């Protein structure tokens, strides 16, 4: 990071409540979870807390010693609470930016930009929801569990991980009333054939109206196959390298199927959540 702006109040667009804002948040805690992940809890102003599950923020990461993250880093909203003015991110240390995030201590400030993008939808027809994800993807899907509970839907969360202990957000999902199934690499239950059989059984039992997933190509291809076969719709949160996060720069495009055409859509603006049927793995 090379410019740490001091945020002055800037004029909002006339007659429009700003959809997102650049704000200074205060770190409440930043703790390791599960060895590989960290949970960052921020005290954030109300103006950035009108969030929807599946939306994300662009974080201006602190500069770790000897490294120079320059662009902001996109992070899904893991938790938000407008009342308590709290905002949470669950992240995995990957490179310079996330190493910078890991240096944050309680009391530090962090410049955040958000909420950004289009979150998950939950049409009335989708009463029985199935969520399938792995790794950090489970962070992105976490707020969906609360949304499902609030809207009175039934949710099954299939959490995939290398080993049972590394499965993320299991307790969180349960606390929102979801049924949790952990699959993992050690017993092979996370492999596509096993997983597909598991889901087929659920579908046969008549309990899946829609899928939610995230990131992984393997899972996407499988869910597209199942979705097409059984006419089950669903949504996926996707990732792409970003610069602006707002829709201005066209950095973050991915190809999507639109009828017979392939079109580019911006992950930051039209996404990060897209219909599973239109995504291209």
């Amino acid at each position, binding site marked *: *990071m*090379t*410019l740490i*702006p001091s*945020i*002055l109040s*800037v*004029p*909002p*667009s*006339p007659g*429009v409540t*700003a*959809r*997102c*804002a*650049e704000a200074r948040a205060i770190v409440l805690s930043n703790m390791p979870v599960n060895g590989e992940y960290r949970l960052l809890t921020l005290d954030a102003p109300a103006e950035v807390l009108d969030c929807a599950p599946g939306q994300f923020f662009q974080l*201006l990461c602190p500069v770790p010693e000897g490294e*120079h*993250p*320059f*662009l*902001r880093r996109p992070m899904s909203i893991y938790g938000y609470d407008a009342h308590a003015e709290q905002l949470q991110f669950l992240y995995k240390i990957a490179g310079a930016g996330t190493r910078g995030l890991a240096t944050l201590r309680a009391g530090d400030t962090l*410049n955040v*930009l958000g909420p950004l993008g289009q979150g998950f939808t939950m049409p009335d027809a989708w009463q029985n929801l199935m969520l399938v994800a792995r790794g950090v993807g489970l962070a992105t899907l976490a707020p969906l569990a609360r949304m499902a509970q609030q809207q009175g839907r039934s949710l099954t969360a299939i959490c995939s991980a290398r080993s049972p202990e590394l499965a993320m957000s299991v307790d969180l999902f349960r606390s929102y009333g979801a049924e949790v199934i952990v699959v993992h690499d050690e017993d092979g239950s996370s492999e596509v054939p096993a997983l597909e059989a598991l889901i087929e059984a659920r579908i046969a039992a008549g309990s899946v109206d829609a899928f939610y997933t995230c990131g992984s190509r393997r899972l996407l291809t499988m869910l597209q196959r199942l979705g097409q076969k059984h006419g089950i719709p669903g949504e996926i949160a996707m990732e*792409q*390298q*970003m*610069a*602006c*996060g*707002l*829709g*201005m*720069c*066209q*950095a*973050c*495009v*991915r190809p999507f199927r639109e009828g017979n055409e392939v079109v*580019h859509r911006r992950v930051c*603006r039209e996404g990060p959540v897209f219909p599973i049927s239109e995504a291209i793995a």
Partner: protein
Amino acid sequence: MSTSDLSVKVGELTFANPIMPASGTFSEDLSDVFDLDVLGAHVLKTIMHGKRAGNPTPRVCDLQGGMLNAIGIPSKGIDDFRDRMLPYWSDYKAPLVVSISAHSMDEFARLAAEVSLPGVAAIEANISCPNIEADGNAFAMRPDTTAEVMRRLRAETDLPLWAKLTPNTGEPVAVALAAEAEGADAIVTANTALGMSIDVRTRQPRLGNVMGGMSGPAVKPIALRMTYQCAHACRVPVIGCGGIATLDDVLEFLIAGAAAVQVGTATFQSPTVMARLIAELSDWMQAQGVTSLGEIIGSVQIPGGEAA
């Protein structure tokens, strides 16, 4: 309390203040963050005549003090511009600058005619995009191709016509003079510098397009040098662009001779930066007792007179 006069003239146009976005780093989406009418002007992403997909991803990567991009010019074409974008931007008071580009002189000229519509205040000719042709080739690499393309554009439009230069040329002053001679009403210095970055773990280039354009604070000294060189060589105004992020950066370009400035990459770090720069510039003028930016523009003090 009297507020300072931030207005600047760029040729025949007057802007309420000297801060405008750089092409490709701005769109209507920024109105989510602040009122875009505070800006001196609106400069749109370069459009090309037809529909284009742009370059493969990853299209950006970050650097120490800047970034590389190889977006290319994904374009929805002239129809989308006329039918959707122009009406949208016409609702704003800030003048609209439309950036255009093309592979061939013919197509470029045709596009200039096509975008010369009511509601368009000026055309910025992007003759410098390093991401369209291989190895960063562009019309603005040479004075002769610059002259030819500007002559063709000039013949097609009565709107103020700006020529956007590239730092990749070895002869920026000759290119600027060629543009001026063929009727450019302003020179924009500059587009991105051709660069490359490799991920040492995968051994792959960090951009899908292998090379890309460098922007941000890292290129500021190069863009400032070009701004100074062109402001001293040309009669038409020069608009500074490259790495501007702070009030000091804005002042540095104005002092070097820029009549106005464009802010690009800084908006990615801080989407509110342009609104903030306008407020800071106003405060600074008041604190310094500067009543008009004419006192600042081109006020660089060269020891012993002119530079060698």
